[in-house]
């Protein structure tokens, strides 16, 4: 049973790590616009160098 002393904190750490990641991504607005990024990826960036 002693292994639980290690496993429980690790499980919690893992779980709450992901929770933290989710809270951070919500705060930084990653769920606000779910449509545009899918379009942005279709464009290749080759024109970039020409212009700038």
């Amino acid at each position, binding site marked *: *049973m002693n292994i*639980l002393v290690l496993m*429980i904190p690790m*499980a*919690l750490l893992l*779980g*709450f790590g*992901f*929770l933290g990641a*989710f*809270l951070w991504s*919500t*705060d930084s*607005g990653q*769920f*606000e*616009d*779910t*449509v*545009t990024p*899918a*379009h*942005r990826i*279709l*464009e290749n960036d080759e*024109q970039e160098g*020409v*212009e*700038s």
Partner: protein
Amino acid sequence: MDGNSIVTDWNTMEAIAFKTCAYCGSPSGKDQYCCEGCRTLSQGFRDFSKGSSEFLFLDQANFKSMYRFIGSDCDYQLYVEGMHCSSCIHLIEKLPHYDKSITAARVDFGQSKLFLKVNENFSLSRAVQLLSAMGYKSYFLKPSDENDLNLQKENKALLKKIAVAGACAGNIMLFVIPVYSGLDGNWRTIFNGLSFLLFLPIVFYSGTTFYKSAWAGLKHRIINIDFPITLALLSGFILSTVNLVRGSGHIYYDSTASFIFLILCSRYVLRRIQQKYILSQNLSLSQRHQNFSRLSPAGEEVVSGDDFCEGDIIKVYANQVLPIDGLVESESIYADVSVLNGEPVPRKFEKGMEILAGSKIISDAVLLRVKEIRRHSHLSKLIDQLQSGVWKKSKFVSLTDRCAQVLILSVFSIAILTFLALYDSDPQEAFNRSLALIVLACPCALALGSPLAVALAVKKSYEKGILIKNTDAFEKVLKLKNIFFDKTGTLTGTQLVLTSSVPESLSEKIKQIFVSLEQKSYHPIAFAIREAFPSTKSIPVSDLREIMGKGVCGFIDNHFYECSSDNSYFDSSVISLSLKEDGHTISTLQFENPIRPESRETIANLQKRGMNCFIVSGDLQTRVNDVALVSRLPLGFAHGGMSSIQKQDLIRKYKNTCMIGDGTNDALALQAADVGIAVAGSTLINLQAADVFFTRSSLSSLLELFELAQKAKKVLVRNLIFSLAYNFVGGALAIAGLINPMLAAILMPISSLIILASTLWGLK
């Protein structure tokens, strides 16, 4: 446009003989490219910096601060019209390359918005002009336009609460498994202690939503749905903590936590559906972002339509849509008021007459005195009413609300009685049974399901072009027996069509004169003429002039031609147009509003459902009879020559009535009928009198409304029956001691989920 369709439809699009965009592959209609973005990207970038001075007025100092977003991660927001595919996004996001004062540009395709970050050299006019050169119409959004900014913040907060509740509930459920499988001793205390720690964020963070709303309800002496949730949450927490400290008895952390998580989830779904509806409606109905000139002692200045004050004198140019209610200051002007009354023919306004917001000015450089600013104009009052009416609770929802209230109160009293009755024999069992009852009988099913069903039905109908002002209409629609149609504008269309002419067959030359004279006119008759003579080409006319409200005149081959209509057409559904050559009438055309093709089908369908259809019209009886014949109505059901009062009286003679109309003379009838429906292009007063408004000028909306009402009713009744049965059976079992609080807490969110699923599925 849906982003996925571009990719998934690729193959099918090519197979069909549609022309596709040479750059991005989405369907492009007749052109080589689907949009300006693709044209620009494939032909290489060009210089967009040259342009007209059209937008220079945006550079006034107060505009810059007025449109600035403070405390947000962008400086300016624009609404961009015409974004079409991924090339548009790509091109617009290149803005920083063209204007060095823009440091970052980000597009939100779904909302058609552009977010800009800028430095101090930024010029508003340059940005709008750049976008205009790229082929997009754009408008700066004011921070006050953005009440969805707050909504977004609240959504974020709720989402975070759900995430925390979900993570904690999940972990608690893991830690409770060993306890349930018979763990004892120290480890049992440790696992329960862990559950306790994990429960703290739920009590002190995720649950706060419920405490606030329950408290707000109590302050107004209302026991709302959040009250029993709060009670279940707090009593679950306190009871479990007491049992944990005592070292004996049940622990309810797991069940309470999952129950809170599920309730939060269903709340979020409901919120998003409601918001989606409100936001989309806001966008479609607003026509702000226009700029007008105001006359002041200092001269003419350009302001946005929101900045007028009462009493200002403003100058409005041709084709601008009025943002305010005003009084005419010019001698006499013409305006297209079809938004307000559905009349296809422009109206003449004399000096001193009131002209309402939403009218389109046809004369140029018209002076108006502002009577009511935008917020107080008739149009915006009406829109407000439409929007608020949606959230007025329908009778059925108020019924379920009352049911829920009664349920909460009676469950409490029964629980207390059970506790008192059993207390003598076994206090622990008495407590368990009453707790099980309270947890089980939480009326979420009732209180969440019905508003969600109605909200979904309203949203669905909005998508189909049906605006529901009064949600009671859903219930009333199902009882309808007698349906009354107005003729003009309802059964018939508003588009004018050429019906007869003198002489019967027109020579090509006369056709050509008609088409040439009307070639520059935006008058509905001009469109009807072009429609009637599609193959006729126009020839140049010298000294072509429009005689406002009368017609047009000009010289062709040294003959003076005048094309004018009788002024008597305002009340009649027939408009005649005569052509005079050097003062002699050489031809007359007659135009009419023909019956809409779907009118007949709709009437046939309604009759099949056992409803009586009537025509009530102010028009001549013979004309009404014609329409009745075409739509296969018995002549006894066609009433012509009716005044507003006669229409009203006729409708009052019947029960379960529905009136569908558009003219001002229908307003009384709309009010008298159980369900009043105004069709597209109705007068303002009609929209106020009606319960339902069809935004598409098609009567098939009526059938769709029936279907939706039937669906909504089915879902509501199903939900009600299910939740009442669940509460009675579950409650009885709980009192009998067959369901322990643990099982009750599992069953409760499951019942809520079933209601949610049934609602979403029933109205999908």
